[in-house]
Each structure stands twice: as C-alpha cells, then as structure tokens.
C-alpha cells in the first residue's frame, strides 16, 4: 500500500499562519542551549497541541531529523498530537492522593464523564487525564482543572467542577 506522504493539515490551521507563528517561536529560542523543549512548550501553548506538520519545520531549524523531533515530542506525556477538550481535568493518581481516596474519585470522574484516561467528551468540553503529583500531598486528593489547582477534592466538588466545564 502506498504510504500517504503529504502531511495532513489540521482544519483550523492554514499552513501560512502555522509557518509564521512557528517562525516567531523559533526566533525567540534561537541560540538557546537545548531549545527543543521550550520550543515544543511554546508551540503547544500557541496551537493547543503540537501539529504534526510543525515537526519538519522545527527539525530543520534545530538541525535534527524529523524522526528525532518526533521522538522527543512523543517521549513526553505533556505534548499532544491532537487538541484537548476545552477543559483538561487532571486528577492526581500518585500515592499521597491514593491514601486519601484518589482511586475512588477517579472512578467517579470516569463514570460521570463516561471517559477513560486520556479521552475527551464527545462535546469537546472535558479531557480526563491522570497526573502524577502536583506537590499538594498534604491536602489530597488534588487536581489541576485547566490552570486551577484544587486540593481536598471530593465527589461533590468534582461534580461541580465538571458541571462548570460542560
């Protein structure tokens, strides 16, 4: 079977605006030692994910192969290939939060949203993700809702947060 060679362009991004925004980002990080992670963070910040068609451009600027760029991007949990839901609900799964009932809370969230980890609701409102430690270990269970930290989370608060997000 012939492999599709042409990169698929995401609907929201036309290649001109992608290129110009990428150029800006790459310019900011030019001459920085080990700039690839800061670049990928900025690209994800700008586009909500790291568009696949951005990788060859980044790779060229960094003088690495496209495979290497993909290898780095795919190594790290943070970088997304696809945009996430409007609100990303990250529930801590680590031990300190487990000791305060994080597992049951995660089960509740999955049931309530009808999602497993890393999935997004059909309406695009919420993406559910695990996170391993927010450093809120003396006031667990903890979560990161969008960019808001929440501690001592219980099912009632979780339901409210989900309600606000939907």
């Amino acid at each position, binding site marked *: 079977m012939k492999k599709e060679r042409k990169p698929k362009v995401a609907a929201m991004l036309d290649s001109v605006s992608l290129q110009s925004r990428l150029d800006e980002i790459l310019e900011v990080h030019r001459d920085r030692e080990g700039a690839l*992670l800061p670049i990928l963070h900025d690209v994800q910040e700008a586009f909500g994910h790291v568009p696949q068609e951005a990788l060859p451009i980044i790779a060229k600027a960094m003088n690495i192969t496209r495979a290497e760029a993909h290898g780095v991007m795919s190594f790290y*949990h943070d970088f997304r290939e696809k945009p996430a839901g409007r609100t990303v609900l990250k529930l801590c799964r680590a031990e300190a939060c487990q000791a305060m009932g994080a597992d049951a809370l995660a089960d509740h969230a999955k049931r309530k949203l009808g999602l497993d980890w890393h999935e997004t609701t059909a309406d695009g409102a919420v993406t559910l993700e695990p996170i*391993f430690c927010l450093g809120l270990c*003396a*006031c667990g269970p903890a979560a990161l809702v969008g960019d808001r930290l929440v501690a001592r989370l219980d099912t009632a608060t979780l339901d409210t947060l989900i309600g606000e997000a939907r």
Partner: protein
Amino acid sequence: MRIYVPIDAAARALGSDAVADAVAREAAKRGVEVTLVRNGSRGMIWLEPLVEIVTDLGRMAFGPMTPADVPALFDAPERHPKALGLTEELPWMVRQTRLTFARVGVIDPLSLAEYELHHGLKGLRRALAMTGAEIVKEVTVSGLRGRGGAGFPTGIKWKTVHDAPEGQKYIVCNADEGDSATFADRMLMEGDPFTLIEGMAIAGLAVGATRGYVYTRSEYPDAVAQMTRAIEVARKEGVLGASVLGSGRAFDMEVRVGAGAYVCGEETSLLNSLEGKRGVVRAKPPLPALQGFLGKPTVVNNVISLASVPVIMDRGAAFYRDFGIGRSHGTMALQIAGNVKYGGLFETAFGLTLGEIVNDIGGGTATGRPVKAVQVGGPLGAYFPPALFDTPFGYEEFAAKDGLIGHAGVCIFDDSADMLSQARFAMEFCAIESCGKCTPCRLGAVRGVETIDRIARGDSTAIPLLTDLCNTMKAGSLCALGGFTPYPVMSSLTHFPDDFARAKEAAE
C-alpha cells in the same frame, strides 16, 4: 496593618487567593491601610490558608481561613474564632530547626531587601572572598549530602567539577520533584527563591561555572513563575549577571520546564531533557561531573542541597555539621503527607524516629483510623509497617531496614490500604514512566503488573517469580526507576504478606 496571605500553591489550592481578595476588599471598605504580603507557606498545610497579622508581640496566625472569616480580623483579632496565637510559638514551629527553610513563609519571596534582612546573601558575600577550593572544602566539611535521594556527598561532587579542566562548566539544579509526598522543592521555590539562586551562585563560584539551569516540572506552574520572577529581580539587582555583587565574576541562570516525564528526575535523563532530547537515562561513567550538560563538567544537585549551601556558608560548616546523627549531618525537610492529620513541611535534624514523625508530629491519620503503612522516599521508597517505627531518620539507618529516605517524603496510609494494590501501582507507575532504555525496567515493570495480577487471582506460585523479577530489576536496571521499584513491591510483600494471601483465600 501588615497582613500575610500565602501564595504557596497548596495554600492557593485551598483558597488563599479568595482570602487575599477578601482582605483587600474589607480593608478598602473600612478605609484601613493594609499592606498585603503574599508569602510562602509556613508548612502547616492543615491550617492553610493561614493568615498572619503583624502585632507588637509578633506575627499572629489565623487558620484555616475562608473569605467569610476575614471581616472579623479587622474587629478584634485576638478574639477571632480562628486565632491560633503567635506563629513562632505554635508547637509545629517551636519543634523545628529551620535552617534551609528559615525564610520560607516569613519574608516576601520576591523582596531582595527582606531577604537580606534575614541573613540573605551573607553566604554569597563570604564565598566571594574565598577561592573555589576553599568553598568546596567548606561544603565538604559541612557533611551535606544530596537531598534528592541518593545522599552523595555534595562537596565531593563539587570537587570533581572544580578539578575538571577549565572551560565552560554548568550548575544544574534538579527541581524535577516528581516523587509523591514531596513538595519541599516546590515550597522553597515559591516561598524563598532567592535562597536557591544564592546557593547556585555559590556553587558556580566554587567550581568555576558561569551558567546555571533550574530544571523543574510543568506540574509546578506556580514555582516556575515565582522562580522566573526571582531570577529577573536578582539580575536587576546585580546578584546575577556578568559581575555577581560587583565582584567581576559572572554567574547567570534560567528556568527550564520539563514535560511530564518522571524519569527526568534522574540526573542523566534530566541532562538529556535539558539538551532537548528524549529523557532517556545515560550509562555512567562518564559522570555528569565530568561530562554532563552538553558534555561539559556539570554539578547536578537537588533544590534542597543547593538551598542549604547559603546557610552553611553563612554560619560555617561546623554549625551545620553538628546537627544530625551518624553520617547524616544537618537538617532534613520532612514532608509529611498522605492520610495525615497534621501534614506539611517540618525541617529538623536527622535522627527522629519514623514513629515520632508519624504519630507525634503528624498526629496519625486524617481519617482517625490506625496507620497501616508509611511509604518513605516517594514511589520508589519502601512501605514501612508500624513495627519498624523505631527506625531513626537517617540515610544509613533506613538503608539498614531495606528502605530509603529519598527526598524525605513520608506518605501515611490508614488500615483501608491494600498493599497488593500499592505494589501493583508501583510496577504500573514504573511501566508508565520507564524511559525504555534498559530491559529490566522496560519489560520488568510490565511483567511485574502481570505477575501481581496473578497473585491477586490466587496464584501463590507467582510470589517467588515476583521476588525473582524484583531481584533482576534491582540488579540489572540502569537507574533508580527500575532499580528501586522493587523497594515498594518487596516491602509490601515482606511486611504485609496477608494482603497477598487474602486474595488467594478469596479465590479458593
């Protein structure tokens, strides 16, 4: 009126921003002039948001505060229902020896003037009058060991970098604090970032490095922001830059943010990540001290190690060395977490027993149920049963009981915990976070989950297999992720055999 409302992430997660807003609103309403300081946390997380008011007697504490509690602060503070008394006289504070965390929660984290009023920059000024070799010797004599977990003598690491041929050298701060039940690095970066900056600058002078990086976590957005702001202030005030405090010697630094990979807390993986590569572990040797960041001699130290250097340089090596037990000198920032009544950060000399930490300081569990297990040292640390509560807190003392102190996270579980599930989670976590470079870790962790599932289904013949697998992972893994995952697994199996046998009975 001077009012302190913490900006620490834990305090914010518990609502301190809303309390700060309420203070500002109430002050405006009453026409009272209030200086609102967003300080770090005092470490009493169960009392957060902990508000303090400056009085003639000292700082008075109130907590845990809600916005509704704020108006009464302006009436008669001493009769406020949430009044706790003078902060410095609270039992939690009185029992501590705060050296590294002396300023956290006390000062405005971004005020260099306040920092200097509280002994700040004294260590750096002293270091500037010394040779690199003299600084290295001072740190060596202090007995400071790596607070990230491995406990390697900091001075010896520095000496290797100092003695490496001249040229570009680096100071890399490992602030990738991914262990559950640890938050000391986060609290320090949010509550007293100048201490870390000062410690890194001293390290730079000691070994001849002019550049530093703080590699921290994307899960710590507040620490990233605070640290970045502090570096800008330090640069503006001449603490960092081409001429540190006008000495003519250069040191500058920046913050770098990881991307959710736990393994990047391992120093060689961190260096790869910092270079913009996959965070895979490097084989040692070569040591990072000789071939580290971009192949150059590099000091890689934990936040708390580096942040302990200013007090050592200020008060002298002997002062620091005299705290502690055996070969564990100085203080440790204990982080008491999980299912705990009084959780938070408690800095004390090495040597308290685990039982004192859990019961006397932590007050037992939050749920009020009996303590079943305590995991010390993060996800790669052993689970200790109450039978081992007489173990003194020290590197060798914990190693002698097949455990480790790691980054000094103490995670408490009540009797509802199922230790087979905890062992399974340890393997699952290793499988998720393995960098994939070495086979014992990459495959062993997956097989570990499967083997524990077999035990859970009642297959007791899988128990020797699990033990064997753990030995393989321990001996054959390249780094501590695969190498130490057996600690939580084997300690669960050894100390809580009933949880592995109960499943069998259920199956029969």
